[in-house]
């Protein structure tokens, strides 16, 4: 089909070539293409001819773009532009430092968040880690996973279809003692030999556990980690064959595992989980997928066969199976989602920083309009102007990224060291900078380069050459540059969102921090004591120990005070179900819950907790006398609306036990003893003598000149039971600090994030306003010459500077209002209701506005003092 002779080549294709191909060449190129197009039209439809034209254009566009890039690298233009960029950056050191610092600060936080996520979710340090999976049962209703029973594991083990190896383990934390070292509690775990097959980890000395170790009646064997081998045996080879005691059993050490091994988390001793595993025991299951099998396929097979297992406790309608990569299962998929959500939030900081630098570069670029126009008019083209500006941004971003990675690594290292000191750093956590982190920083850097440099550069080159050359450099004001004021607005809006969110988070985090100074902590040493069932078989044995310890410490003249308690002040404890006599509940599950603390008689005295009504516990409140309880003010407010609790009987039900009744005999003030969300926690205290605790914490203080509390305590305990280890020994201060760590770290993290956002917004705004004001000296001079007063000029500059701030703030508040409930609920696990905290929504705009006024007022004041004669003469 022939086409009309008037058909024209696609204009956009021509424009594309005009942009890419050098001016000297583009005309002859288009001459050929146009003729080719005309000839095509003679024999073909215009649609096909146009398609042909576009195809030729795209080939040429790609080829010429390649030629241009090659030319930049081979012609020395890149070197020249880089030199020019470095010179330009050195000419304005203040601006460069501000830009580098801003980007460095902006990149540190998200890079650190990325580094932490990467470390916590690093792959297991084993062969083909993606084939190592955790197999759990899943409650379909709640979506929660739970460990399989011994019988289910045995059924899976009998038909390990889809798995190359399958193993089970259970945490078995016990005190360990051996030749030459005193009893100590180390994280230990019982594993089936299958676990070591799944992990394919070799010992550094000796052997691993085999099926013969797991056989019924076989001698008990254990593996210990290299660091324990060092501590206990000075790396002597005769450690193999040495006997260690764990609980009631004696184990022979048969292998030393590498220091880098800590399965399942940060464990140091592995013993055998013997066959057959008790049907009702709960075990965690781990498997290595057979080659070529996917997680989904294996999971489907296990779900399908769940009904056929013949386990009466499993109803396939309510229970399913979940197979997940081991690390993801261990850390929790939700944690991963939360961390990425937080990272996204933290990522806003980079956007603010980049917008900040972009605004600075744009402000500077707008003052160079005539220089830009000159370069473009002398044949350089837009590219020649954009290139050096882009390189400047690249240098600044690269330096910022360097600071970012360095800062991130410092934060990740600090976090790793803290977790390691507490023994909670998972053994797979790789704290080295990963290629992923570097790639992440590189992406941030390139993004920042585009936002901070290339966009302002393109904007700068969109000038009317004639107009720009006619005008001299009179500078620009923030309101005459829409992109500049938009950037300031965006920056303020983002800062507002980040500040609101982080303030909500900080409030939540600080709420969990126990109040310092509410109870005496100085000189108080605490330790945990666990009376293992094999050694203390009945209530009488345990009571004898607790009362023996009390007598022993009472009789020690060096002890100033001591007490036993299920939890010390400031430390968390478990809840129990309670029902006040006279109230009735349809179901036992509906009983209200209350914090339950088991304490010894001296507890209230030792921590200055004043009894406000009734009495404290006495030695007369023994096991055979009627049950008594003391409640705190918060409990009275919560349960009784402030009415007197004395004489009331309360039924206390622990998990799976019959309720026990106690008469409330006292009320205690406990300001700050335990707080949650900033509120005092309602608590019910029960006497140690009337309970049967296996595990209690002891607190001791010594008199001046007497031996240290640890010495006294160790002597007292070893005189009663030399095999009982003192566990988690720490001062009360350290205990409270540890309890507060989570809140403090979160508070610090979000606090610094919010502060950084505020700081960046202030610095950015100040930079832009100061720069544009200094460029408007001439205009201000004219204003002053025409009779404007200092106040008029001040108001003018303030108004121009604060207008985009106001708009940004309004947008930011609106976004925050709709975002905070989601962030509170999904990311911070906070109550949604507190998301719209009036204090936060009042405080943040006030802070930002004060910051903005602070940022604008200095340049405004300096502008108002412009001497009209000097300003006009300078022109």
């Amino acid at each position, binding site marked *: 089909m022939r086409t009309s002779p008037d058909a024209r080549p696609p204009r956009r294709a021509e424009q594309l070539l005009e942009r890419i191909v050098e001016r000297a060449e583009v005309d002859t190129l288009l001459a050929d293409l146009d003729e*080719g197009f005309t000839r095509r039209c003679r024999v073909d439809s215009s649609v096909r001819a146009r398609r042909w034209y576009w195809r030729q254009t795209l080939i040429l566009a790609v080829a010429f773009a390649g030629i241009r890039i090659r030319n930049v690298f081979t012609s020395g233009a890149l070197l020249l532009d880089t030199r020019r960029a470095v010179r330009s950056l050195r000419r304005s050191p203040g601006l460069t430092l501000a830009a580098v610092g801003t980007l460095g600060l902006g990149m540190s936080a998200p890079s650190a968040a990325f580094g932490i996520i990467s470390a916590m979710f690093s792959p297991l340090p084993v062969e083909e880690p993606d084939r190592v999976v955790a197999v759990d049962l899943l409650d379909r209703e709640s979506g929660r996973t739970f460990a399989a029973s011994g019988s289910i594991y045995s059924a899976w083990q009998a038909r390990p279809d889809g798995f190359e190896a399958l193993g089970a383990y259970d945490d078995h934390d016990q005190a360990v003692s051996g030749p030459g070292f005193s009893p100590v509690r180390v994280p230990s775990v019982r594993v089936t030999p299958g676990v070591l097959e799944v992990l394919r980890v070799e010992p550094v000395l000796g052997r691993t556990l085999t099926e013969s170790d797991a056989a019924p009646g076989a001698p008990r064997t254990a593996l210990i980690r290299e660091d324990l081998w060092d501590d206990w045996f000075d790396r002597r080879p005769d450690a193999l064959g040495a006997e260690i005691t764990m609980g009631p059993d004696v184990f022979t050490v048969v292998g030393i595992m590498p220091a880098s091994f800590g399965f399942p988390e940060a464990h140091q001793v592995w013993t055998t989980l013997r066959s057959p595993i008790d049907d009702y025991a709960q075990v965690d299951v781990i498997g290595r997928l057979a080659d070529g099998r996917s997680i989904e396929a294996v999971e489907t097979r296990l779900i399908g066969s769940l009904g056929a297992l013949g386990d009466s406790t499993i109803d396939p309608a309510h229970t399913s199976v979940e197979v997940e990569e081991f690390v993801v299962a261990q850390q929790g998929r939700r944690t991963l989602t939360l961390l990425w959500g937080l990272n996204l939030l933290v990522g806003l900081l980079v956007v603010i920083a980049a917008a900040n630098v972009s605004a600075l570069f744009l402000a500077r670029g707008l003052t160079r309009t005539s220089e830009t126009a000159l370069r473009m008019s002398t044949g350089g083209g837009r590219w020649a102007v954009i290139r050096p500006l882009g390189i400047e941004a690249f240098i600044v971003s690269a330096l910022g990224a360097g600071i970012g990675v360095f800062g991130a690594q410092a934060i990740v290292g600090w976090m790793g060291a803290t977790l390691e000191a507490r023994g909670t750093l998972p053994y797979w956590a790789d704290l080295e900078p990963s290629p992923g982190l570097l790639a992440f920083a590189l992406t941030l850097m390139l993004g920042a380069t585009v936002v901070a440099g290339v966009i302002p550069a393109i904007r700068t080159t969109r000038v009317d050459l004639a107009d720009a050359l006619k005008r001299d450099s009179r500078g620009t004001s923030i309101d005459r540059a829409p992109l500049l004021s938009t950037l300031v607005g965006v920056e303020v809006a983002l800062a507002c969102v980040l500040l609101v969110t982080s303030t909500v988070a900080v409030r939540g985090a600080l709420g969990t921090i126990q109040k310092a100074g509410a109870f005496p902590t100085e000189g108080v040493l605490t330790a945990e004591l666990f009376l293992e069932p094999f050694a203390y078989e009945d209530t009488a044995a345990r009571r004898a120990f607790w009362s023996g310890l009390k007598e022993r410490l009472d009789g020690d003249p060096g002890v100033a005070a001591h007490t036993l308690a299920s939890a010390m002040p400031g430390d968390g404890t478990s809840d129990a179900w309670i029902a006040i006599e006279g109230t009735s509940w349809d179901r036992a599950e509906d009983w209200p819950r209350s914090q339950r603390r088991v304490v010894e008689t001296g507890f209230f005295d030792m921590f200055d907790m004043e009894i406000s009504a009734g009495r404290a516990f006495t030695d007369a409140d023994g096991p055979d006398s009627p049950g008594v309880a003391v409640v705190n003010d918060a409990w009275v407010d919560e349960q009784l609306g402030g009415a007197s609790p004395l004489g009331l009987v309360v039924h206390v039900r622990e998990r799976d036990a019959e309720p026990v009744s106690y008469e409330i005999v006292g009320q205690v003030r406990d300001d700050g003893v335990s707080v949650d969300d900033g509120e005092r926690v309602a608590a019910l205290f029960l006497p140690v003598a009337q309970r049967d605790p296996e595990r209690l914490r002891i607190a001791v203080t010594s008199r001046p000149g007497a031996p240290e509390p640890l010495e006294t305590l160790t002597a007292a305990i070893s005189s009663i039971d030399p095999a009982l280890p003192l566990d988690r020994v720490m001062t009360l201060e350290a205990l409270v600090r540890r309890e507060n760590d989570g809140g403090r770290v979160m508070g610090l993290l979000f606090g610094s994030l919010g502060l950084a956002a505020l700081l960046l917004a202030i610095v950015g705004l100040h930079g832009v306003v100061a720069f544009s004001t200094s460029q408007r000296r001439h205009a201000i001079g004219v204003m002053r010459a025409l009779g404007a007063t200092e106040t008029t000029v001040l108001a003018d500059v303030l108004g121009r500077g604060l207008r985009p701030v106001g708009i940004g703030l309004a947008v930011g508040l609106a976004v925050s209002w709709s975002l905070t409930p989601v962030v509170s609920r999904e990311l911070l696990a906070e109550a949604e209701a507190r998301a719209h905290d009036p204090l936060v929504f009042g405080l943040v705009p006030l802070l930002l506005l004060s910051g903005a006024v602070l940022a604008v007022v200095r340049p405004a004041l300096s502008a108002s003092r412009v001497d009209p004669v000097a300003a006009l003469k300078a022109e």
Partner: protein
Amino acid sequence: MGRYILGEFEHLVLLAVLQLRDDAYGVSVTELLSEQTDQDVAQAAVYLTLRRLEKKGWLEGHTAARSPSSGGRPRKTYSVTAEGRTRLAHAQSTLRSMWSAIGEELS
């Protein structure tokens, strides 16, 4: 023999320019090559090759007057330089000697 390699397509383009004498430009070279090779040769590829051969010094470009057929734009014609002719002659003799060594094997 010079620092540049003569590619197969470049070889064909040089021969087409020689053949077209004074009328060698993008469109005419493309049409001749399409005709002789019985393939749809991309004009963009021809243009880029002409440009490359000019950079190598084997072609010389001449900007001709503006013509209505090329949308009123100046057309660029090409001629083979002495260096280009030498390169072609060398390529021809190389090919001839290579072919003679093969003899009748492919026929």
